[in-house]
């Protein structure tokens, strides 16, 4: 359960697929135009999925479905990609860093 004053992330459908009138490729036409934004929860309490109100970092009021409490980033330096080591080996071999091997 989230409490008033907690930092949260909400989700909102800005335009449902049927409301999208811009010139779009067919695959994009079929899906909603969605938005995610973070802010301070204004409701006394809320559960994930509830329609809530937040105040964003610039002081704007936004509404949407509660998605995450204390949201954080998980992007990283990625899983090992062996090709990168191959590039390094090849370049060092051509350039003979540290003299001939």
């Amino acid at each position: 359960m989230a409490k008033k004053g907690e930092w949260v992330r909400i989700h909102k459908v800005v335009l449902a697929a049927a409301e999208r009138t811009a010139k779009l490729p067919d695959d994009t036409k079929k899906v909603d135009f969605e938005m995610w934004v973070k802010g301070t929860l204004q409701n006394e309490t809320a559960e994930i999925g509830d329609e809530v109100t937040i105040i964003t970092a610039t002081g704007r009021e936004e509404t949407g479905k509660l998605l995450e409490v204390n949201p954080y980033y998980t992007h990283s330096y990625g899983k090992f990609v062996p090709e990168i080591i191959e590039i390094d080996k090849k370049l060092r071999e051509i350039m003979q860093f540290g003299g001939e091997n």
Partner: protein
Amino acid sequence: MKLAKDYDSVMGRSADIMKASLGLDFNDFESGSVAFDYEGLMKATGYTIEEVDRIQSRTGVGHTQLLELRNITALARKYAKPGFGARIFVKDEAANASGSFKDRRAACAVAHAKKLGYKGVIAATSGNYGAAVASQAAMQGMKCIIVQECYDSNGVGQPEIVEKARKCEALGAEVIQLTVGPELFYEHLSVMEDSGYFNASLYSPFGIAGVETLGYEIAMDCREKFGKDPDMVVCTQAGGGMVTGTARGLIKAGATDTQVVAASIDLTGLHMASDVQFNKKSCTTGHTGFGVPHATNPDTGDVPRSAARPLRYMDRYVTTTQGEVMYMTEMLANLEGLERGPAGNTALAAAFALAQELPEDAIVVVTETEYTGAGKHIQPQLDFARENGIEIVFGDPKDDVPGKNIVLPADPGLFKVKDLDLDKLRKSLIKRSVPRANGKLTAEDVAFLVADTRSDEAFVKAALDELGVEY
């Protein structure tokens, strides 16, 4: 009375919203037809290049180092014919306050917003520009909102864009993240209208004036170090601001013989507004999906007329591939000790091939580096590609198929550039400009198109004849 905020109502008010959010009436420069007073628009910023330099210097922007890439030059020479292989240099723009050349663009726009009394700035960008605007807003004590196209309909975001969101938030901005689609403009306008913030558009004259210092510095750096102007300057081409601003700066410095080459990653075949294809690309900027439309149809952005008009300034427009740019990013780290990019290394990948066309005493300058971070690095980007079904192989980059594979050059000798047909792009620009005319094009329109395509009257008239358009 509360304004209606539905799609059609907001889009219908777009001209008024843009005028209020820029403090500039673009109608002052319009002829009512194809032509508009481009130089008048640029002068309307009211800032000379010296003033822009002062504004930037106050906030840790500009006067970055021009670094010689000695090992990369030596490597290029191994594949060039004897006596060929120009010296390759790069402006280390990653050293700007927020980590890219975009600080130059943001510095001017945000300073101007501050001067006009706006409380905040807003920008629509999934790129480094968001961090630049956020950084400048923080330094100048203003609020900041960044609107990003970030996710596909499954809520999966490009790691590179997610990192840029993190950085914007770290610098105090609010980030509005959206799924794929041009309706981003609607959300952007709507928030601009409600907040009353300044539109720190990438395409405003303030932004482009900010890049002019980059071209100017390159000319000055080269004169000081080598006693001559650079022979070639290679710019990554996406929205066109880098090419336009750099070339204008070079001209202001008097470096009129320097060849300006635009370079984009070839993403032919991938539709930029496609939800399914959004995460099939492995670089989110510096590619032809932005580069070509912004060259041939510059006035489609978030300002009525774009100050970024790259076809006016480029001598050549070449493409490279995702695999070459990824490889070059690793090369820059491994051979030069500079972990930068990846997307910002598009021009460098092209320069590696272009330098081989020039003699050893020639100077090739690549205009930028950009910061690297989690998500924004070749390993997470290649890992993300592989997870999205993209095949990663070593081979000949000419076998690259965007959205299907990433071909890393099996040998550095396989780096090549492909020249786009500039005349074809020029004709495309002319065709897209025609609907603005009231039937017949005026003599002023023809002169404008000559300048906008950097061609001559005979070329423009022949193109109009081909289209069956009167002038």
